[in-house]
């Protein structure tokens, strides 16, 4: 039997990226994936005949450009199509659209608020500078200011020097972004409710917090860090769905010699004398390697695969305290025709309907989102949820049969800790709430639906294995970010078990199909800096 240097538990995009980098460096790598296909939550599936969906994660932006380059993902089949606009339908049959064309966008914003139209550019410029400022953080293992490890001190010094070099006003803005709520931060800039609502939505995604909760301004920035073709805040869609991201990384890993085994669920990490020595599969097979990397989230890794008996008590406590609190679900629709949003004139062929080539955001105001959160705060599905909708078939017609379409609806809030728990009936209720809400803006939606797939946080946990269905492998809140992700003193991809590493988005810099955790972990294992 082939001997491996490294076994990676979990074939999500981070596990695959980690494998690709390690294999590229000459290590013999084996990826073990529980499911029959790789990708984890970044996967595409033909859920209904002829209709392909990005079942879970559904857009690309945060995927690090250096990963695309270094692993030659384009050569391995990744093609990112830009999402060009965001349409926010409003209750009074009006709408707010944000277009990629500057003049068009300014004219549209001015229709709502001439002041906002002017502020918009300045705001964009500031966030661009902020995204640039934090960019070096993304591809480094975050140093712990409390650490005495000379390596970490060196990194800390380097980082300190870097931040000292930033203009004072940028530092102040950064501090505000780290501490404020998205709503408060946006209030400093804008007056249009629709614009603030839609912008603040970026601050709540994947988190059981409302736009008025402190800390959400950072999540807003996190979603600004996406970079496509040198442009920040550019969102895209992978041709063939988000499974194409995983497939391309897997192909790169295999091209470098990594082996990938699907249908291979890992039951335990083998530990001997405080060292990881391999894994045991659920079928009882034992596989040995001197390095084991877990792409699973911190709870599954430490409380499941490792077992607390092998871990220091304070570490176990930190992991227990690490917050997941999945807050979002998905509804995927196969459509016989395009939805007609009553707020937008919609005659003519699809190429004349640019608003359907971008995102549609149900976020008419900050109040709307905050009320949606109010329901979730007390354990209920939002009666009027926030939704981020894309129609991939508008950009990649091969996702659906000719003339038909697929719609992906990201929905918040659907709390994992639902009063009374999730059941089939509650799932249907959730699906109905989503469809009813959206049909208010696009009345033909119900008759256009050929099939629907409803995914709750409980489903995400059950199918993909993300604890509590949190899409980021743990909330992106300040108390569990940077050098605290996932646990104090263990943020640099290492763990209290020698030879056991983590590479999932439960590590710095977090989720969003960035691949950064996988890459950073590989570099840490190789003892290299980014």
């Amino acid at each position: 039997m082939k001997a491996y240097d490294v076994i990676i538990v979990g074939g999500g995009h981070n596990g695959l990226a980690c494998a690709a980098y390690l294999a590229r460096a000459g290590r013999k790598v084996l990826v073990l994936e529980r499911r029959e296909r790789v990708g984890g939550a970044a996967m595409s599936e033909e859920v209904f005949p002829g209709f392909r969906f990005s079942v879970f994660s559904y857009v690309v932006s945060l995927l690090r450009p250096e990963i695309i380059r270094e692993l030659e993902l384009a050569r391995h089949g990744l093609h990112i199509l830009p999402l060009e606009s965001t349409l926010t339908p409003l209750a009074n049959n009006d709408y707010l659209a944000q277009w990629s064309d500057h003049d068009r966008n300014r004219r549209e914003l001015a229709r709502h608020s001439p002041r906002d139209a002017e502020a918009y550019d300045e705001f964009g410029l500031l966030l661009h500078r902020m995204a640039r400022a934090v960019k070096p953080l993304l591809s480094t293992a975050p140093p712990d200011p409390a650490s005495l490890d000379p390596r970490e001190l060196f990194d800390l010094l380097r980082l300190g020097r870097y931040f000292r070099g930033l203009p004072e006003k940028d530092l102040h803005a950064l501090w505000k972004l780290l501490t404020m709520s998205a709503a408060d931060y946006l209030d400093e800039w804008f007056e249009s409710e629709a614009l603030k609502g839609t912008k603040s939505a970026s601050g709540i995604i994947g988190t059981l917090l409302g736009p008025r909760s402190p800390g959400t301004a950072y999540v807003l920035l996190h979603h600004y860090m996406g970079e496509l073709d040198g442009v920040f805040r550019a969102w895209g869609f992978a041709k063939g769905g988000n499974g194409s991201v995983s497939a391309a990384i897997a192909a790169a890993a295999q091209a470098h010699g990594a082996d990938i085994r699907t249908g291979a669920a890992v039951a335990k990490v083998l530990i001997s004398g405080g060292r990881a020595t391999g894994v045991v599969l659920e079928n009882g097979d034992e596989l040995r390697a001197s390095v084991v990397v877990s792409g699973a989230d911190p709870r599954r890794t430490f409380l499941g695969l490792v077992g607390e008996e092998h871990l220091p008590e304070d570490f176990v406590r930190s992991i227990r305290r690490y917050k997941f609190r999945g807050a979002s679900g998905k509804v995927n629709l196969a459509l016989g025709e395009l939805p007609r949003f009553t707020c937008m004139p919609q005659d003519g062929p699809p190429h004349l309907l640019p608003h359907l080539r971008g995102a549609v955001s149900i976020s008419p105001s900050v109040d709307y989102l905050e009320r949606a959160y109010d329901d979730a705060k007390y354990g209920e599905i939002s009666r009027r949820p926030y939704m981020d909708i894309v129609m991939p078939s508008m950009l990649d017609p091969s996702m659906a049969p000719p003339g038909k379409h697929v719609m992906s609806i990201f929905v918040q809030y659907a709390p994992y800790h639902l009063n009374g728990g999730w059941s089939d009936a509650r799932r249907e209720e959730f699906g109905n709430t989503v469809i009813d809400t959206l049909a208010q803006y696009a009345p033909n939606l119900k008759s256009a639906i050929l099939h629907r797939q409803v995914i709750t946080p409980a489903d995400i946990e059950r199918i993909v294995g993300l604890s509590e269905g949190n899409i980021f492998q743990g909330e992106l809140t300040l108390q569990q970010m940077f050098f605290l992700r996932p646990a104090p003193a263990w943020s640099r991809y290492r763990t209290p078990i020698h030879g056991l590493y983590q590479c999932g988005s439960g590590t710095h810099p977090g989720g969003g199909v960035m691949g950064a955790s996988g890459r950073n972990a590989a570099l840490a294992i190789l003892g290299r800096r980014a």
Partner: protein
Amino acid sequence: MLKTTPFHERTAALCASHAWRRWAGHIVASSYELSHEREYHVIRTAAALFDVSPLYKYLLRGRDAARLLDLVITRNVLKASVGQVLYTPWCDHAGKVIDDGTVARLDEQLFRMTAAEPNLRWLEDNAVGLDVDIADVSDSIAALSLQGPAAEAIVQSLGAPPLKYFRIAPATLRGIPVTVSRTGYTGDLGFEIWTDREHAIALWDALMDAGRAYGIMPAGMLALDVARIEAGLMLIDVDYVPARKALIDSQLSSPFELDLAWTVNLDKERFVGRQALVAEKERKAQWRFVGVELHYEGLERLYSELGLATRLPGAAWRTSVPIYVAGGQAGYATSGVWSPLLKKYIALAHVQARWAAPGTRLEMEVTVEHRRKWVVAYVARKPFFDPPRKRA
């Protein structure tokens, strides 16, 4: 006055950007939308419809039509079968490229030639003593190019026969008599559809209508320029100076210098420029036309030093840019673009033959915030993008 194409009634109505470009005395859309971005991606994901009517087109008919073409172009026309299309350059007597285009054998004694520049006189002058009738059909034949993975499904849904790469056949699309060739300028799966001027609008409507379910979009020259660079396809007047326009010898290029050695058939007994090309093959071409990839991290560093995000050319540039090796000039790039698909900054360049091997480390000039800098670049294989579907 600039001319409009037979499709102008339709293209003008769709041209929201009001951005037009000149092409052989005609105006054609640079982009229909406000940005060419989407039009580019449609080429690679669905199907993009281009108006390529401004191409010069000649119909050659007669017993000696094949002989005339065989005499003029560098490839072997006599061996071409009916239904075959040849991409080819043609040269002057000194073996320097005059133009490049396609020659389609529509029948035993009937050919259609496309060219970027007028070539009627050149063809006539070479036809002395030959039994061939040459007609300039540039204005009477309208042409559309449908490019992208869905192009085949669209033309076949209208009744086009299956076609292999670089084949042409007559067809009737929704009652419209056309010829369809599996050719294009994007390096993708695609077709060019040729019809008489009077059928132009009906043909446009038929394609747009049939393409609707497949995500068809009209696309302009800006998108085409990105695609053709990815495909490693050169453009006259941009990547090379045609022999008739060269003011000094150093502006001239032979097919060998343009990476077109594969089109030069020296086994043919006689064709214009043969002697010169035989001699050049002997002594080996001094220049090569290559693909170049800029080193991204190098470019990023230059911008980063100034506190700026990397600026990338989303639209193709068409200027001459110096290329260096070890401090001395080794050549020049003639077009370049950030490939949104490959996520690479690519360029087409002329370099001295000894620097032409793939992987050779070069440096290319870039202007970063008003300052001229050099960025490491590597010779890369062309085409940069070559999907199997193109030939499948």
